[in-house]
């Protein structure tokens, strides 16, 4: 048994790869690659109408990809022996990601620059930047983007409530475990169920219990979705009710992980409760807070189900989200090309926005924790 020189992974055996094994390994790899490339080109040419023969659908190309992936993995070992085996720890996962993430993204780009209405007999047509131009002048999309900013700003209030609840539930209160589970229940509910239970039943203007309460409190004709501001607030509250427990549980976990000695030291030093919170707990909780807020922002940017079920984006687009608008464009109007482009642009906006947000929040955290 030998070890290979300069091999930090301490490979214990260096197989001697015979020339024949090397040849057949390379041959299998090249053949499978050629087959994959040929079947793809053939089918693409057939679908594009350049040739008159091809497969009935793209499935054979998928099979060629699967075969190529298997051959690629096997030939790592055939060609490189034990060193090749190391690649097998990562390669299948990488090929899976290529198939399930990279390819769909590329395909979405291809569709996004197309004029493709499912009702059109002519099918998909490449239309360059037309969809992009249309998007820039689309008032519905712009309105939905503005709404998303407003919805995202509501996270600040959600965070404050969640932090308050987390602080409360971290105290020694009676039936603490019961309250923790109870506060988590909304998170376990499907947003569609929340839409029906709360949006369509409890907020129903004639018989809904909340409407009755509002009448009892003096609101003569309660309307929770009648004007843009109230409708937007109602949606925000329903969404918050569902997701505040999520932030709360993350913050609660953070609070429980805080170093007790630091808190006790602050107490011994005579810090008031407010000083203990604002100058000790809050700064120490910032990393957890940033994580909770970031994940919440991602959830918020996908907000659609409650809107679709309760308001369909109304009144007049006041509650429309980007996702619910894309949903209508794609589903009701079968406008696949334009809908896909809107989704891609939204993805790009989210990626850029989240990156910037992370940078900014990192600076804030470092400043507040004295690391800057």
């Amino acid at each position, binding site marked *: 048994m030998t070890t290979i020189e300069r091999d930090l992974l301490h490979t214990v055996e260096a197989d001697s790869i015979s020339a024949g094994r090397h040849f057949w390994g390379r041959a299998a790899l090249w053949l499978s690659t050629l087959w994959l490339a040929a079947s793809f080109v053939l089918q693409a040419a057939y679908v594009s109408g350049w040739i008159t023969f091809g497969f009935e*659908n793209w499935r054979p190309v998928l099979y060629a990809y699967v075969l190529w992936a298997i051959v690629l993995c096997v030939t790592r070992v055939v060609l490189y022996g034990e060193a090749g085996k190391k690649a097998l720890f990562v390669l299948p996962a990488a090929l899976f990601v290529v198939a399930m993430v990279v390819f769909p993204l590329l395909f979405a780009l291809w569709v996004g620059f197309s*004029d493709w*209405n*499912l*009702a*059109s*007999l*002519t*099918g998909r047509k490449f239309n360059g930047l037309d969809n992009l131009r249309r998007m820039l002048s689309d008032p*519905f999309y712009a309105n939905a983007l503005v709404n998303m900013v407003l919805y995202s700003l509501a996270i600040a209030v959600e965070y404050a409530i969640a932090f308050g609840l987390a602080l409360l539930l971290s105290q020694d209160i009676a039936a603490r475990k019961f309250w923790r589970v109870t506060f988590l229940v909304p998170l376990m509910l499907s947003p569609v169920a929340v839409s029906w239970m709360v949006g369509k039943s409890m907020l*129903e*203007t*004639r018989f809904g219990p909340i409407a009755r309460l509002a009448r009892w409190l003096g609101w003569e*004709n*309660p*309307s*929770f*979705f*009648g004007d*843009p501001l109230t*409708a937007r607030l109602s949606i925000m509250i329903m969404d918050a009710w569902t997701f505040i427990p999520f932030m709360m549980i993350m913050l609660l976990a953070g609070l429980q992980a805080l170093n007790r000695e630091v808190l006790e030291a602050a107490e011994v030093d005579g810090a008031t409760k407010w000083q203990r919170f604002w100058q000790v707990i809050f700064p120490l909780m910032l990393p957890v807070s940033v994580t909770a807020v970031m994940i919440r922002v991602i959830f918020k940017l996908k907000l659609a189900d409650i809107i679709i079920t*309760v*308001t*369909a*984006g*109304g*009144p*007049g*687009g*006041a509650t429309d989200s980007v996702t619910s608008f894309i949903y*209508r464009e*794609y*589903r*009701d*109007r*079968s*406008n*696949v090309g334009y809908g896909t482009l809107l989704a891609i642009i939204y993805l790009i906006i989210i990626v850029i926005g989240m990156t910037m947000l992370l940078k900014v929040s990192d600076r804030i955290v470092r400043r507040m924790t004295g690391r800057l």
Partner: protein
Amino acid sequence: MKVEIYDALMRCQASRRDVLRGTASAAALLGVSSVMGGIPGMAMAADDLRAQILKIPGVGKGAPTDADWQKVGELCLEPTKANVAAGEFAGVELTFMGLNNQNLHNFLFRGFLKPWEAYTGAKINWIDLAQADYNARLQQSIATGTVDFDIIEMGAPFEGDTAGRGLLDEMPDWVAKQIEADDLVDYLKAPVGTWEGKTYRVTIDGDCHTFAYRKDYFGEGSISGRSEPPKTWQEVNEVSKALIGKTDPLTGLPAYGYLDPLKGWGGFGFYFVENRATAYAKYPGDPAWLFDPENMKPLVNNPAWVQAIQDVMDLIAAKAYPSDQINADPGTTAFSQFLAGTGSMLMWWGDVGSSARTSDTSVVGDVVGFGINRGSSRVYNRKSGQWEEKYNEAPNMAYIGWGIYVTKRVSGDEKKRKAAWSAAAHLGGKDISLWTSAYPSGFQPYRQSHFNYDEWQAAGYDRAYIEEYLGSNANSYNHPNAAIEPRIPGIFQYYSVAEDELAKGFAGQYKSAQETADAIAAAWEKITDQIGRESQLKLYRASLGL
């Protein structure tokens, strides 16, 4: 044959077929000729069957259950048995795609087809869709070549998308005979259900929007102060405004007039603006009211349509609707509002009529009246570009009714094909259709035979009520100026985008009704160009019979 005799015979394990055969044999033995005796005997048996199924569960005895649907399906199996042997479809599996609105449609079909499955040996797998998801699911299946259903419940507006692309199987002749297709009301016969001369549809529904109103709002001393319900849309708006601040005589809650749905409904909400618009825009003798048949230019921003949109905006401005009306879709206006006692006037499909008396959630069964779509005191002539001061009415045949279609997936397998068509024929049978017309089903009367008021009276319906309810349907179907929807591809895309623009208009984001209508027209132009103006124009003209 009396029901109790039938039941007694059933208890003796005699099938209805045996009973009928026995009746005919007895008639023959008595020396009665088939013409003079046999047919009346059979007709009497059929009449008794119809009377019997109308008693399941009985008018006023609550909403029917799955057990009732199965019982009706069992009793209506005779036509199937005449064409299919017991167990003939053993081993056949079919996939059926339909709706699950208000727990009807597919829920009924399951019950109706359960005895059919037991008799034929076939098995049916179900794809249930919400109304709002239907269009997308269908379009995606078509466009991606993934039609995964053998039988589909589909409206005639989609025939352009499906039959036009060769995705449907042509209906065999025996099916037409089994379902007695000649009994359909005239407007549901060809060209509806056909494409290039071939028939593809077993009709199970006839669509038109009819006017439902609360009788306790009208008459001497009523809160509206009017002796009769409004006859025109102008009067509808007058009444709606006059009711502001008054109290509903039935519920004691605030009274309201006409219930316009102001929220979209996956495209279906546009039908409700159409109801108002047809009175203004559908000029007698001119079949075109949505698009110009010369160039496919939208008519939706002409003065007639603008008036219809303005009417709604006027009621919003007057605060004549319930407080959350901007968030009310058509389902809300019919089932959560009108049937539950909110509002006094509504346009809807005919099933509101049968649900008013038979649904558990309805409180207006005793005070509801019906009529055809309201008219207008003036009509717009698009050719002259002028309003004409004369009374006009144009019932809206919204959606042209549901039908059962069989897809090409079964075409290569004769056994499966026959099974699919047999299932479709069972659901579209003459007797079963009477039941679906009379009870909550999502379907409304669509055959000449459905307008036999004696049958309904015998079932327990109030004669005056049923004459009014059925009469409103019959008068709409047979109206010479009925507004019939074009069967062009992507029609619901036009409706969907119109809903978005209307929502903005109703929320006050456009300066006027004209601006709202112009926005709809511009969006429609884009859709027409995207789908293909030439092909759309050709299909549109064909659907108008031009």
